[in-house]
Every structure is written in structure tokens, then in C-alpha cells.
């Protein structure tokens, strides 16, 4: 391969002293530090980088920057790397990705031959018959043609990505002359500034400009560097602007992560992205060797690479004129310098794999290997779009301009008009001052509004009027579609292989709005997302419909402005985990972890059936800390309880406990638990583990918005009190050894009472005589800093009593044996109170309780499902939870099993289920459909409790 590296250029960014070796499709190459992958390969004479998506046409360098549609490569295990912007690193393994079997020979090129049949939406119009053909053949072929790189599953994993928040007063998107000037003036006005530049260096187009440009750049850069209020993020892209100036910045190449997402709440967003050069549509415009003026200038001036040897240049603007000088300086022969302003044109380019001949607009054909076009600009209005702007096309300047942006978004630089470097910088300076003023006014207001902030010193800054002199709009010819006879074969969308003729066809078929055309042809939907093709697409549509560009509109540019890796968006994955004070102990003693919401809990310690039986026979202890606990204080707690529970709460003596069920305003069972009265105005409420947060917020809601006159303080104390249930016939005996200050005798401390006392020397414990297991049991709430001490004391002192810890699975078994239902498992999103078998618990004669009208209505109905206990007639058969209860041999559903376990106590299976009321009577036989399709029968029981329905065991 040839060496196309030029002698040193004044603005070059390569470090000739640091060679970097890398491979391309398995072959070794050398580039320099500062090269991009594309510049290094081009310097080595590589001309073809990729194959196009549909027709597999060879593709070469086109824009030589991040947006280049032809420079997608695989680097190691990273797919879809932009070779036009990714800087070269030593040892990179780079390969072409959309090729099969290889870049030089691709079987898909056959599509070029049949291309005339693969018009817009051709797939919608065929492969319908026979039906199997679509599923079995064509769809599979289509998948083979999917473009893009490959995931390397053996090495890829979610690695070290990162995020941070930022709160700059002014964020400047774009570090060209206007953006740099805006950053400096905003900083000088005392604003905190973040300046974000897409490329690895500040400067924008000045970087590949002439000596004057380089001098101006040096001056602006030093002003930025000198200012302490400016944080500069290079190789970073503002990818989105969301409501209230929430701005996403993707920072590449940070030490901590390959990509880091910065989320900034910005006072004023200054949009200064410059302009994106637009390709020209003519036949052969995607042949390698056809490139835009910016690409040629960047190759020559940044990386000192000679882009070709014989060039045809089509210029419609001064940048196009400048490229001629650069090409000549690089030793490229100018075969034809065409001036679009004078009516010159390119009709067609010929060549496969590289430009060989160019048919000019005047009919001449010339030999050339390079075609450079400078036919105009696309204003990257993406961020302005996201701020609500709908930019407007100006035919005299042949591009779109911002229209109406909100006050907290300001545009400057090339996106707003043309100017010399000095004029651009002046506009930037004025914009920066304005942006700072608006941001500092906002900061003043925010400080005044936030209780934690230092009160703002002095008055709020006065509103600064927008007196900026707009940049000029220099006339520019409308160069979109060549006058050549075959021009419509020219590509509009390179990444999607959509030619102008495809768009014309779509318009003719009725897809004649830009959005419909986009959807039908997929134009602008590829990886460049319209940055190169959207204006050309609108121009082709306008021509097809014989309309003005102004009336066509454009597609909406959606975020992100540049694609962001999923890794960067995810960042470090924060999934808060809650652990009780005893969880370390459980882990150390072989507990199987159970993830229950955010909590980690002990599911069992190896033998859930044995652990459950031990509770029936001896004594067991379980950590039930996740149980929601709310401390309620104040003179009006009773009123609150009356409101939120279905039952009555008057006359609950101090030391007494009551069970309560909550329903929502729609009458559906929402939570349950016990509440005990600890003092005159002091109660402790327990909730389900999963419902703890919601119940707390619900109590606050009614207290704050419905009954603000009630005096109740609610404090969540869930984690502060480690809850240990001590259950089993020997639980009292065990506690007698450890409890001080509480008379544990059944007479002094009966069922459904609560006491405060000292346990194992720990004061301020709360002891409840309640339980979910049906045994004599006590729930001990211990201040969590001492919980491990109490837990270990219980174990040590219960050794001779046969104590064993038990986990959640054993508790599920025990509670099911007792027929206690679980809200959310045995009830569902439609279960109203009567269905849950609450019977007399619900008091409909209260003046106010949540969901009261629904409760009244529900109790008048006879068709609601009923929760019942069911025992399968085959005692060894344990139905799967959610098995359906059906009407005999038919498929009519009459209910379902909601809970099901083998009972170690009874040696048989036991269930709870919801059934149609016709099946609710005790003794009714029900048909249960098993997972394997068999049907079996079960019998409805008289009580919910399978074990000890009279409650003798817990009342001893």
C-alpha cells in the first residue's frame, strides 16, 4: 500500500514521534498518535472501508468525521465504531463489519444486479403467498443481511461505565469560535460555565483552516484556558436537551470510563454546533473517492494525508474555494474546478471501488480519482428541536435557521448565520453575556426558593435585553440534485441505501409527507439519523411534489444527537439492597437468600419443613424485620385508625393489640397488620413488608390533605426495630429466661397484647403477643444496634428447648396451615373486603372509612368470589399456586388456588383459593386443573385454618 502522508502541515494534530501499530482486517498497519482510525488507514492507501447495507456497494471516506456514514467498523469486541472520529490506539484490531465473506468480495453484491426490483417498500408488496415462504425463507435471508457489527459474547460484559451530575449556569454546546467566545463572556459575567466540544480539541472549523484561522484559534483557546469558571469537556457531545434544560452530555475517553454520562441542570443552554456539510446527489455519489470539502480539508490539514491525485471540485461557497487551495498545496492535481454559483455541475461519477471518470455538467468526461463537493450546509438544529423549535428553511441561504427558542436556550455561531471569525466570536460573546444574565437570574430565584441555600446577596439581576446583531445570511445556491440525466440514482441516505428515485417513487404512492416518506423508505432512519440526508430528502420530495422547500417541513430530530452506548446510559447500576441487623448472621449460618423487594431475607436454613415442624413442637425464631413499622403519636391517632382500617378502633386499651385490614378507596384490600397501643397517645402500627412505604405515604396523604387539623405524627421505624418472632409451645419458657420487667404469665400478658421491657439486657424492647404461625408466640422488637446480641442470646438460651431459626418458607407453610391469607397473594387487584372473608371485621356503620361506599356496595353483592380453604382429596398432591378451579370437565373457570403447600403438621397438602360463591360452602367438591392437564378434586373446608381452627395453641 502506498504512503499518502504529507510533509508537516501547520495545523496538524498527529504526533509524528509516536507511531502506533494496529491491524485492519488482520493486516498490520502503522499510524500516529492523533490519527483517527480512518486517517491512519487513508494515509496507508486504504480506500474502501465498508459495504453498503442493501446493495453492498463499496464505500470510502465521505466526511472524515463522526457522522461519516461509510466508516463504521468493528474494533475488538466493540461494534459500530466511528472510524472517522475514534482516535487510533496502539494494538487496535479493526475490521470491516458489514461484509460477507470479506470486504473485497461480498456475495451480497448480487443485489446490485437485481436492485431495480428492490425499490421502496418492495418487501411490503411481495412474499405474501405462500404464507410459509415468508416465515421460513425470506425472513431468514433478511436477517442475514442485517448490517452492523457483532457482539462478542465471550468477552462483552457491562464494564466500568460512569455518570455524574452537574449544575452549570451556562452550558455551551460546541467549542468553535462562537462557542469559545460565548463561554468566555459568560464566565466573565460570573457564570459557572461548562464548554462541551464534540472533537478532541477546541476550535471547530478553525482547526483545519488557514494561517489566520489558526492564529485566531490560538487566541480564543488561551482565553478559555485562562478562565477558572470554565470547565471544558473535550471529545464529548451534548446528546440531548430535555424539559427544564435537563441536558445530557456524553463524555468519551474519561479515565474512569470509556463513556461517561454527565447530566446537567443548566441555567442557559448555548447551542453552537456549527454546520454540517451536505452531500450532493448525483449518480455515483457514493463511489469511494467522492468526498465533501470538509473531509478533504481535514485529511490534509489535521492529519497530513493526501486524499487523491487528480481531483474534480464542485464548489458553491468559499469553503469549496478554500479546498482547492488546500488540494493544490497537498500536490493534488485539479482536473476541473467547477463553480456551482456559475452553473457548473457534476452529472455522474463512474468507477467501482474508486472514482475513475467524472461526467461534468457540460457533457465533458474527465479522468479523476477524487471528487470533492462543497454544495452547502445542514444546520444541526437537533438541540433546538428538542427545545421546541421548528427551524425554518431560507431558500436564499439554502439552509434551515432557528425560529423560536425558549429564553433558556440561545443559539450562536454558524447555525444562526455566516460571518468572519471575528463576527462569529462577537456574536458568541454577546450570546454568552445574555446567557449568563438569564442563568444568574434563575440562580437568584433558586437560592431564594430553597430552604437550604444561602439567601441571595443583593437584588436579582435586571433583565438584559437581547440586542445581539444577527449574523448575516449569505446567499447560497440551492444545490441538492444534479442536473445529470441519471441523477436520481444518486444516494440520499448512504447508510440506508436510499436513492433519490426511491423517494420519488414513494411520493407517487401517497407517502408524500416527509414523515410518511421517512417511514416508507427508511430515509434518515439509519445511524446518521438525518444529519447528512434530511435536507436532501426534503429537497427531492419538494421537487417530486413541485412544492417549495419551505412548505415541506422536516422530520423531527429526536434525541440522542449522537448515539450513546447502553453502558454509558446505565452507568453504575444502583440497586439499593436492604439488610436487617441479622442478615450477616443468616448468611453465615447457611440461610438461602430470598430477594423480597429491596430486602434480602433468609428463605430457609436447609430444611424448611423441619424448621416449620420445630415451631409446632419446640420453639423457633425468625427474623421478620422487613415488617413495616410505623410509630404513631398524637391525640388524634384513633381517628386516623378509624379512617384507614375497615374495623373499629375506639376503646383499645393501652397494652392491647388489634388486627386491622386496609382497603383502598375502591374497596380493594390493600394491606393488613396489627396495631398496638403503647401509651395514651402512642401507637405502633405494623404493615406488610411490601406495603410499608405505600401505607406510610397514604397516612401522610390523608393527614396532610384531608384532615390537616388532626394532630398525628407518623414516623417510620422499620429498620430501627429488628423484629424477631419467637414461636412455638416453648417460646414462653425461653423468654422467661431473658425478659425483665414484663410479667409473661398468660393472665398478665394474654394474646393480642403488647408490652415494653428488657430482653437479654437490652432495654426499650417491645414485646407483642401475636403471631402468624398459630403457635404461642411473641414478636420481640429490639433496637437494631443490639439485635444480634438478643438473637444470639435467644439461641444460646433456647438450646435445651430445641430452638432453631426458621425462614420465610417455613413461615409461609405455618401461616397456610393456619389459613392466614397474604395480601397480594391470596388477594389480587380486584379483591374486595367481603371476598377476603373478613366477615364481621368490617364495620359499615362508621361515618368515614376508606372506600366506604364501595364496601357497602360489595356487601350487598352475592356474586363476588370467596376465599376458602381447600384440601386436595389426594393428600399427597400439592397443586401449583395459580392452578385454576374449573367447572368439572368443562373449561369454565370458577376460581383458582392462591396458596398451596405440603403441611408437615398434617402430612397432607393444604391450600387457600378464591372460588365462585356457588362453591364456597364447606364440603363442596371442586375440580382443580393441574399444570400437566390432569384434573383432580379437592374439598372446601369449613374454616380457613387447616390446623387448630379454634386457636387453642396460640391462646395458651
Amino acid at each position: 500500500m502506498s504512503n499518502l502522508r504529507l510533509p508537516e502541515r501547520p495545523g496538524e494534530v498527529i504526533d509524528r514521534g509516536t507511531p502506533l501499530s494496529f491491524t485492519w482486517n488482520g493486516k498490520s498497519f502503522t499510524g500516529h498518535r492523533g490519527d483517527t482510525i480512518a486517517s491512519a488507514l487513508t494515509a496507508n492507501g486504504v480506500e474502501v472501508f465498508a459495504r453498503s447495507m442493501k446493495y453492498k456497494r463499496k464505500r470510502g471516506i465521505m466526511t472524515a468525521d463522526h457522522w461519516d456514514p461509510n466508516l463504521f467498523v468493528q474494533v475488538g469486541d466493540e461494534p459500530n465504531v466511528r472510524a472517522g472520529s475514534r482516535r487510533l490506539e496502539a494494538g487496535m484490531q479493526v475490521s470491516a463489519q458489514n461484509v460477507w465473506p470479506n470486504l473485497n468480495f461480498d456475495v451480497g453484491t448480487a443485489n446490485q444486479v437485481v436492485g431495480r426490483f428492490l425499490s421502496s417498500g418492495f418487501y411490503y408488496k411481495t412474499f405474501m403467498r405462500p404464507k410459509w415462504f415468508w416465515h421460513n425463507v425470506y425472513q431468514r435471508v433478511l436477517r442475514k443481511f442485517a448490517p452492523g457489527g457483532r457482539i462478542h459474547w465471550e468477552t462483552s460484559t457491562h464494564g466500568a461505565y460512569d455518570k455524574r451530575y452537574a449544575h452549570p449556569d451556562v452550558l455551551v454546546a460546541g467549542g468553535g469560535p462562537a462557542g469559545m467566545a460565548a463561554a468566555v463572556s459568560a464566565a466573565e459575567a460570573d457564570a459557572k460555565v461548562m464548554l462541551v466540544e464534540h472533537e478532541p480539541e477546541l476550535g471547530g472549523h478553525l482547526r483545519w483552516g488557514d494561517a489566520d484561522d489558526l492564529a485566531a484559534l490560538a487566541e480564543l483557546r488561551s482565553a478559555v484556558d485562562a478562565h477558572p469558571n470554565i470547565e471544558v469537556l473535550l471529545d464529548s457531545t451534548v446528546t440531548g436537551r430535555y424539559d427544564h434544560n435537563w441536558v445530557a452530555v456524553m463524555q468519551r475517553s474519561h479515565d474512569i470510563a470509556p463513556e461517561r454520562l454527565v447530566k446537567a441542570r443548566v441555567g442557559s443552554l448555548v447551542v453552537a454546533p456549527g454546520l454540517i456539510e451536505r452531500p450532493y446527489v448525483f449518480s455515483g455519489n457514493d463511489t469511494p473517492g467522492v468526498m465533501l470539502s470538509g473531509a478533504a480539508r481535514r485529511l490534509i490539514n489535521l492529519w497530513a494525508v493526501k486524499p487523491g491525485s487528480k481531483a474534480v471540485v464542485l464548489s458553491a461557497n468559499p469553503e469549496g474555494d478554500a479546498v482547492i487551495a488546500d488540494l493544490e498545496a497537498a500536490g493534488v492535481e485539479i482536473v476541473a474546478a467547477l463553480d456551482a454559483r456559475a452553473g457548473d455541475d457534476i452529472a455522474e461519477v463512474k468507477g467501482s471501488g474508486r472514482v475513475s471518470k467524472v461526467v461534468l455538467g457540460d457533457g465533458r468526461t474527465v479522468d479523476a480519482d477524487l471528487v470533492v463537493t462543497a454544495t452547502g450546509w445542514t444546520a444541526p438544529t437537533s438541540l433546538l428541536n428538542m427545545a421546541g423549535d421548528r427551524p425554518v428553511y431560507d431558500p436564499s441561504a439554502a439552509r434551515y435557521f432557528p425560529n423560536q427558542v425558549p429564553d433558556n436556550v440561545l443559539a450562536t455561531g454558524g447555525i444562526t448565520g455566516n460571518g468572519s471569525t471575528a463576527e462569529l466570536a462577537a456574536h458568541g460573546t454577546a450570546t454568552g453575556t445574555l446567557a449568563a444574565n438569564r442563568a444568574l437570574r434563575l440562580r437568584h430565584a433558586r437560592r431564594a426558593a430553597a430552604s437550604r441555600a444561602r439567601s441571595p446577596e443583593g437584588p436579582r439581576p435586571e433583565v438584559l435585553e437581547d440586542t445581539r446583531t444577527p449574523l448575516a445570511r449569505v446567499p447560497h445556491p440551492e444545490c441538492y440534485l444534479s442536473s445529470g440525466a441519471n441523477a436520481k440514482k444518486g444516494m440520499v441516505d448512504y447508510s440506508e441505501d436510499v436513492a433519490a428515485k426511491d423517494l420519488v417513487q414513494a411520493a407517487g404512492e401517497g407517502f408524500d409527507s416527509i414523515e410518511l416518506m421517512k417511514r416508507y423508505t427508511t430515509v434518515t432512519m439509519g445511524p446518521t439519523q438525518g444529519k447528512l440526508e434530511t435536507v436532501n430528502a426534503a429537497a427531492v420530495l419538494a421537487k417530486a411534489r413541485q412544492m417549495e422547500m419551505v412548505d415541506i417541513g422536516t422530520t423531527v430530530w429526536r434525541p440522542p444527537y449522537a448515539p450513546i452506548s447502553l453502558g454509558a446510559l446505565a452507568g453504575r447500576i444502583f440497586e439499593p439492597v436492604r439488610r436487617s441487623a441479622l442478615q450477616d448472621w443468616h448468611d453465615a449460618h447457611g440461610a438461602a437468600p430470598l430477594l423480597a423487594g429491596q430486602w434480602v431475607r433468609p428463605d430457609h436454613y436447609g430444611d424448611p419443613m423441619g424448621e416449620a415442624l420445630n415451631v409446632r413442637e419446640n420453639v423457633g425464631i425468625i427474623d421478620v424485620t422487613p415488617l413495616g413499622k410505623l410509630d404513631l403519636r398524637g391525640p388524634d391517632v384513633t381517628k386516623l385508625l378509624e379512617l384507614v382500617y375497615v374495623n373499629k378502633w375506639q376503646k383499645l386499651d393501652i397494652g392491647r393489640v388489634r388486627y386491622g385490614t386496609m382497603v383502598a378507596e375502591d374497596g380493594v384490600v390493600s394491606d393488613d397488620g396489627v396495631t398496638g397501643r403503647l401509651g395514651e397517645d402512642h401507637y405502633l402500627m405494623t404493615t406488610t413488608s411490601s406495603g410499608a412505604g405505600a401505607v406510610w405515604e397514604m397516612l401522610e396523604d390523608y393527614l396532610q390533605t384531608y384532615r390537616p387539623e388532626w394532630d398525628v405524627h407518623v414516623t417510620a421505624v422499620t429498620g430501627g426495630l429488628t423484629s424477631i418472632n419467637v414461636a412455638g409451645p416453648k417460646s414462653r419458657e425461653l423468654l422467661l429466661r431473658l425478659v425483665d420487667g414484663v410479667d409473661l404469665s398468660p393472665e398478665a400478658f394474654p394474646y393480642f397484647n403488647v408490652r415494653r421491657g428488657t430482653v437479654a439486657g437490652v432495654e426499650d424492647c417491645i414485646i407483642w403477643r401475636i403471631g402468624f404461625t398459630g403457635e404461642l408466640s411473641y414478636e420481640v422488637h429490639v433496637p437494631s444496634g443490639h439485635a444480634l446480641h438478643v438473637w444470639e442470646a435467644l439461641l444460646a438460651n433456647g438450646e435445651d428447648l430445641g430452638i432453631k431459626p426458621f425462614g420465610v418458607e417455613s413461615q409461609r407453610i405455618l401461616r397456610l396451615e393456619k389459613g392466614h391469607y397474604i395480601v397480594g397473594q391470596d388477594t389480587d387487584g380486584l379483591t374486595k373486603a367481603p371476598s377476603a372473608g373478613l366477615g364481621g371485621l368490617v364495620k359499615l356503620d362508621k361515618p368515614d372509612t376508606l372506600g366506604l361506599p364501595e364496601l357497602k356496595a360489595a356487601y350487598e353483592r352475592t356474586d363476588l368470589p370467596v376465599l376458602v380453604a381447600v384440601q386436595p382429596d389426594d393428600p399427597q398432591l400439592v397443586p401449583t399456586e395459580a392452578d385454576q378451579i374449573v367447572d368439572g370437565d368443562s373449561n369454565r373457570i370458577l376460581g383458582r388456588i392462591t396458596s398451596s403447600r405440603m403441611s408437615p403438621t398434617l402430612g397432607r397438602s393444604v391450600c387457600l383459593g378464591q372460588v365462585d360463591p356457588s362453591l364456597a360452602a364447606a364440603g363442596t367438591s371442586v375440580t382443580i386443573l393441574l399444570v400437566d392437564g390432569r384434573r383432580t378434586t379437592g374439598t372446601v373446608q369449613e374454616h380457613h385454618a387447616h390446623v387448630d381452627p379454634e386457636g387453642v395453641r396460640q391462646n395458651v
Partner: protein
Amino acid sequence: MPTSIPRGCDRMSDFKSPITAGTVTAADGSVAVADETATAKVVVRAAAGTAAATDLGVGFGESRLRADGTLVCGTRPEEWTLFAGLERAGELAASIDTTGFVSVLDITHGRAMIRVSGPKAAKVLEKVCNVDLSDDMTPDGAVFSASVAKVTCDLLRSDRDGEPSYLISCERSFGGYLHAALADACTEFGATLPAGLGIH
């Protein structure tokens, strides 16, 4: 009968924090994350106009250090949190005039507490907390609540010797996780995590 009944439980020495890892410090000392759970914490809820509200003397968002070393924070409207040495919880609670609609609750065991301190403390926090921590929005002494690594926390900026420092407390059961998340955020600034400490 068992041989011994461990009646003794010393409030101080037996107090267990949910955070088991030690202090994590950046190599250059620019930031440190330390467990301060073993602190007495008392929450006071007092309606406006009560003696307690007046005595506490700071509004929501503010804090002050009392002469006796108690840190009084205006945690929420009509809500204060008092911090002091672990042994002083009872004393703090008893010091509040409970005339009127006032509740006093010892939450020493209910909250884990972590201090992030050093010149880079704010840089660490801004990786996991979306609140603007600049000096004018969140000056020394500022009290606020916010989500930190997706856990709701009460925060106090409590500089020491002119060096930024933040006290962060959360529901106790999140303590281990939050400590790991904050320590993880320090790795960018040169901290090395102890084995086993990580958010994943």
C-alpha cells in the same frame, strides 16, 4: 436450664452498625468515607409555636451546634434531628419541652450515618446525588433530604477545619449498601475498595 443468661448489654460497646467495612480513603487524602452510625440521633416533631420549636431555634434547612456539642438540624418543616455522642440519646430526648403537640423519638438505631469529607467530597456526592452542592446553594450548615444512589437520605453539610464534609443518614437497613455506593464513588479519586465491598 441454660448456664448463663447474658443480661449485660452495654449500650456503647455492644452497639452494632450495619456498616462493617472501615473508612475508605483516597490515596491523596482528597476524600474519605467513614461510618458514623454510632451517634445518638433524636427526632423531634413540634408544631410551630410550641416551646420545643422555639427552643430548637433553627428553621428547616438550617443547623447549629449547641454549646453542649449537640448538633441541631432543621430536617423538615416542624421536624428536627439532634445528633450527639452515642451515650447522650436519653439526655437529648429528655431535654425537649413536650408541651403542646410535640413528639420525641430516639432514632439512634433507625438510621445509619456516613460522613463524606475532604476537598473532593462534593465531587464524590455529585456522582450519586442530583442536588446542586455549590457553596451558595448548599453552604456549610445546610440541611436537606435527597436521593443518594437511589436511597432517600437526610444530609447535612458540616465542614470541618474549612474542609467540606457531609453527614449523610439513611434508613438503617440501607446502611451497608449506601456505604458501598459512596466508597465506589471515591474510586475515581484514587480510593481502593476493601475486598468484598462493591455495589454489584
